[in-house]
Each structure stands twice: as structure tokens, then as C-alpha cells.
């Protein structure tokens, strides 16, 4: 894992001399989406600068997937302004879709086609010129590490292979913006690692990435900037390091013990006004560096994004 410190937004675009006046890749202002009584997205403001990997972190039901669908105009906002790559949605959405790639949360590959056919169809859909299609398909197969499986029918691929093909399909036309909706949900750790390096590679190539996730580790590892979404709104935004510092401090003391002991520690924390949370079989006391030795006995560890997340949303995830 890289040091959190060199993850400042745009650090990896140093070679491109990221222009300070660059238009945002995605700009949402006051976006609202309602489904009957439920307000899935509730006055969302979101700005993704070009060239960064931007993580949209939130629990299930926070409105991440609805937001992702709105960016391709497959869901239409009830209120607000949406702009993707400088194109106003939904009116100019087709133009923006031409220049971006989408990797959906749910596998929607054509199971009856071979990998090569799937990529060939999407090369056409994304208007890759005829003369370049074969090269584009070859490149995508390489990205997905499926060159040896080019003529295998999707149905016969393993889960990890399918997910890699799904990512490669979204990259067939060398998009300058990629939307990844929960890219590693339900995958085993090894496949998750593979996809992480793939996503990291995109960023190195200067592609803007917007990734929604409810895996904190994923956001912490990949994202330059993380926006925490809860109940349809962004409630905090910054680099992972900034968010941790601002919302969980530097250190955490975790106290383990039987339930009575944990209840006691929780009460103690509440009485002293220490921010704390239940974390599995332990009580975690945040900002332990400020306690000057008053903290109860326990295991000290650096604060992480999960602490910040729970402090922000009050919701435990993953």
C-alpha cells in the first residue's frame, strides 16, 4: 500500500501538468431523485476533477447506484444540473457516453457470446472505427488477461474472468472517464487485488475514475479523493488521510472484553464525551491521542477510514 501522503489529488497527473482551470469531469449540482415516497438522491453536489480516482463511499441504500445511473442518463433526475465531460445531461448524454466507459455492479455480459464477440459488439457500439476494431479487441483482451480465452463463451468463464471482461468491455474505446459501480463486490480477495491493480493502472494512464464502493479498504487504497455519501447526500469529502484526521483523529484505542466490560467502557466514553463506537467484539475510542493517559487499557492503533466513516454516518458497514 502506498503512503497516504502522496495521494494528493492530481499527484499522478504531474506528467500531464494538470491544468488548474480544467473543467470538472463530472459536475452535479442540487440533484434530486425520488421514487414515490423515497428520496434516493437528495440535493447532491458532486464535483470530480479530471484525472483523479474519485471514490464514492457509502452504505447500501445511500444512493450511490442511483447516482451512477444518472450519469449515463438511464435514470433521470427530478431536479438539479448534471454535467459529464462538459456535456449537459440528459440532453447531451449520448455524446458523453461516447467518451466514457461504464462498468456496472451487476454482470450484464452476453452469456451466449465469446469474449471476442462481446468486445467486438461493444467496439461497434462505442463507434471504434472498423480499421481499429481488431486492435481494440486485442488490447481489451490483454487488459482483461483473457487472450487465451478469446473464443471461450462467457457462460464458461469463472466469476473473476467475467468481472475482468466486464471491465475490459467498458475500456474498449479508451474512454477518458470510467464509472465503476462497486467494482469488486462479492469477489474473493485475490480477484479483488487483480482488479485493484487494473484500476490503479487506469489512473496512471490519466483516465478519470469515479468508483462507488461500500468497501472502505477499496476506497482507502485506490481513491485520491473520497466523498462519503449518506441518505442521498455527500456528507464529507477529502483525501482518505484528511477524512481520517478530521473525523477520527490520529489514534484509536480498542478495548476488548466481555459484554459487561464493553458496556462499562462505552459508558465511560459517553460520560467523558470521548467519541467511541462498537467495532465488532471491541469498543473503539477515537482521538485517543487527546486522552493524555486517561484512556482505558486497550490496543492502540492508527485511526483508519472506517473509523472516520462510522463517526460520520453512524452506520457500520462491511
Amino acid at each position, binding site marked *: 500500500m502506498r503512503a497516504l501522503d502522496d495521494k494528493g489529488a492530481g499527484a499522478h497527473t504531474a506528467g*500531464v*501538468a*494538470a*491544468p488548474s482551470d*480544467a*473543467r470538472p469531469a463530472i459536475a452535479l449540482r442540487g440533484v434530486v431523485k425520488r*421514487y414515490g415516497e423515497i428520496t434516493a438522491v437528495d440535493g447532491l453536489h458532486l464535483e470530480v476533477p*479530471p484525472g483523479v480516482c474519485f471514490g464514492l463511499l457509502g452504505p447500501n441504500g445511500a444512493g450511490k447506484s442511483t447516482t451512477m*445511473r444518472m450519469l*449515463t*442518463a*438511464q*435514470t*433521470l433526475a427530478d431536479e438539479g444540473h448534471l454535467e459529464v*465531460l462538459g456535456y449537459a445531461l440528459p440532453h447531451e448524454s*449520448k*455524446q458523453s*457516453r*461516447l*467518451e466514457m466507459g*461504464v462498468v*456496472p455492479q*451487476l454482470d*450484464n*455480459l*452476453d*452469456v*451466449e*457470446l465469446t469474449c471476442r*464477440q462481446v468486445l*467486438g*459488439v*461493444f467496439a*461497434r*457500439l*462505442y*463507434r471504434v472505427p472498423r480499421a481499429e476494431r481488431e486492435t481494440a479487441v486485442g488490447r481489451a483482451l490483454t487488459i482483461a488477461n483473457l487472450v487465451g480465452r478469446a473464443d471461450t463463451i462467457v457462460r464458461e468463464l469463472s466469476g473473476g474472468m467475467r468481472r475482468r471482461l466486464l471491465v475490459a*468491455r467498458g475500456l474498449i*474505446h*479508451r*474512454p*477518458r472517464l470510467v464509472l465503476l459501480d462497486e467494482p469488486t463486490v462479492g469477489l474473493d480477495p485475490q480477484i479483488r487485488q487483480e482488479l485493484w491493480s487494473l484500476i490503479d493502472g487506469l489512473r496512471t*494512464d*490519466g*483516465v478519470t475514475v469515479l468508483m462507488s464502493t461500500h468497501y472502505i479498504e477499496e476506497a482507502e487504497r485506490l481513491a485520491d479523493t473520497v466523498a462519503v455519501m449518506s441518505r442521498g447526500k455527500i456528507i464529507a469529502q477529502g483525501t482518505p488521510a484528511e477524512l481520517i484526521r478530521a473525523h477520527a483523529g490520529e489514534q484509536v484505542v480498542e478495548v476488548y472484553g466481555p459484554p459487561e466490560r464493553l458496556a462499562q467502557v462505552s459508558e465511560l466514553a459517553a460520560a467523558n464525551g470521548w467519541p467511541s463506537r462498537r467495532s465488532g467484539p471491541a469498543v473503539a475510542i477515537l482521538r485517543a491521542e487527546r486522552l493524555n493517559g486517561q484512556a482505558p487499557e486497550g490496543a492502540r492503533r492508527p485511526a483508519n477510514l472506517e473509523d472516520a466513516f462510522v463517526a460520520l454516518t453512524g452506520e457500520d458497514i462491511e
Partner: protein
Amino acid sequence: MSAQAQELTVGADASARRIRRLEPAALAGVMSRDVAIFGRYWRATTFSSIVQPTIYLLAFGLGFGALTKHVDHVRYIDYVATGVVATAVLFSSAFPGMFNTFVRWQFQRTYDAILAAPVDVEELITAEVLWISLRAGVYGMAPLLVGIAFGLPPSAGMLLVPFIGFVTGFGFAGFGVTIAAVAKTIDNFNYVTSAVLTPMFLVAGTFFPVAALPAGLRAIAEVNPLYHCVQLVRDAVLGSLGPADLGHAAVLVAFALLMWRVAIWRLGRRLID
């Protein structure tokens, strides 16, 4: 964006390409998927498209034919051979319209993937309907080939049949897509199959003349696009085209255009929320 950044941005050339409505490239892209999938099941489709009319001709042509030699001055087996063209077109357009649409949209989520690409609902549905109707036009010829084997004389008018099948198939594919869009579950298709499609293909002058029916049923036949398809095909194949056939053709074209727009409207509302 600075000139330097512009150069280095991947896909920057794409912004030069302006995108319009109903683009041929989008239609071709969606249809290329259908063609690739067709490569997997064309054998089964072709087999059933030959076997079905053969069964009809054996059962009705030879069975009933033993009782009835001629209908409307036409050899009964030729009457059935030309009639079941419409049946073949109906089944090879309405069913794919219903089932393929529902499966790709609800189960495989293929349409979600396509609509995330630069393809809009109108292009997606138009391409799907176009593909189904092209196929229906070609497979509509199968009963004639079987008919020829049973003694139907080949005629120049047969060359019009794929076009008639295409227009009719376009309408019924649009009808199928519309049913898929309004159906709650795939089982709902049973209502349509039994209450709409089956009577429709029986009250179309396929196996017996509509003129023999009571006035009420005759009126239904008049608004049944399949009846107009049957009449047009029969007149074309048997060399008896007349002014009335312009009317039949007009009904089929109007039906096709209407169902095309209705399909886009109904499914569009479900695909984009």
C-alpha cells in the same frame, strides 16, 4: 483544457464526432450482437421453420384437402401453403419480440449495458425490431419452399413475399416488444399467446376463407393485420394482385409504424426511470 492536456487525453478525438438521432452505426452495433447470437441458434430456427409448415401442409393440405379440393378457386394445398407464410412471420416476430426482449432486459440486463453505451432507447428498440423483421421476412419464405415441394408452382410474385414478411414482421415484433414492456412476469405472455395470437392466426384466412365466417368475426378479421398479410401474400404468389392489395399493404405499413412507436414509448418508460 490546455492544448497539452488535450493532446494527452485519451479519446479526445471522440469529442469531434457529433452524435445524432437514429444513427446507422448504433443500429448496426446492436444488430451485430443479434447476428453473433443468431450464429448459435440458426440451426434450430431453420429446422422449425421448415418442419412447422410441413406439418401444416400434411395435416390441413392432405387431411382437409381430401374433403376440399379447392377454396376460392385455388387448390387447397396452395391455399394453405400461402396462408401459413403469415403464420410463420407471426411466430418468428411476435415471440422473439416478447421473449427476447424480456429475457435481455430483465434477466440478462443486456439492455442496461447497451444503454450505457452511446445508444438511445429509440435506436436499441428500432435495431431489435429491424433484426427480428429481417429474419421474419427470410423465414416467411420457408412455407413457400415446402409448398413448392407439395406442387405449388413457383412464380415471380414469390419475390415480393420477403418484403411483405418484413413489413408484417416489423409490426408484430413491435407488438411483442410492447407486450414485454407491459408484462409483469414472463408467464403473462400466456394470456397474449392464447387470447390474442392464436385467434389472430386462425381468423386470418389462413386455413379457410374469412368470408365464410359470421359478420362479427369477419369484422375482426378486417382489423387483423395478419389477414391483410395473408391476402397480400396469396395474391402475390398466385399472380392475382389487384387494387385491393394496395389497401392490404397500406394496413401493414400503418400497423408497422404504429407498433414501432408504441414499442419505443412503452419500453422506453421502463428502461429509463
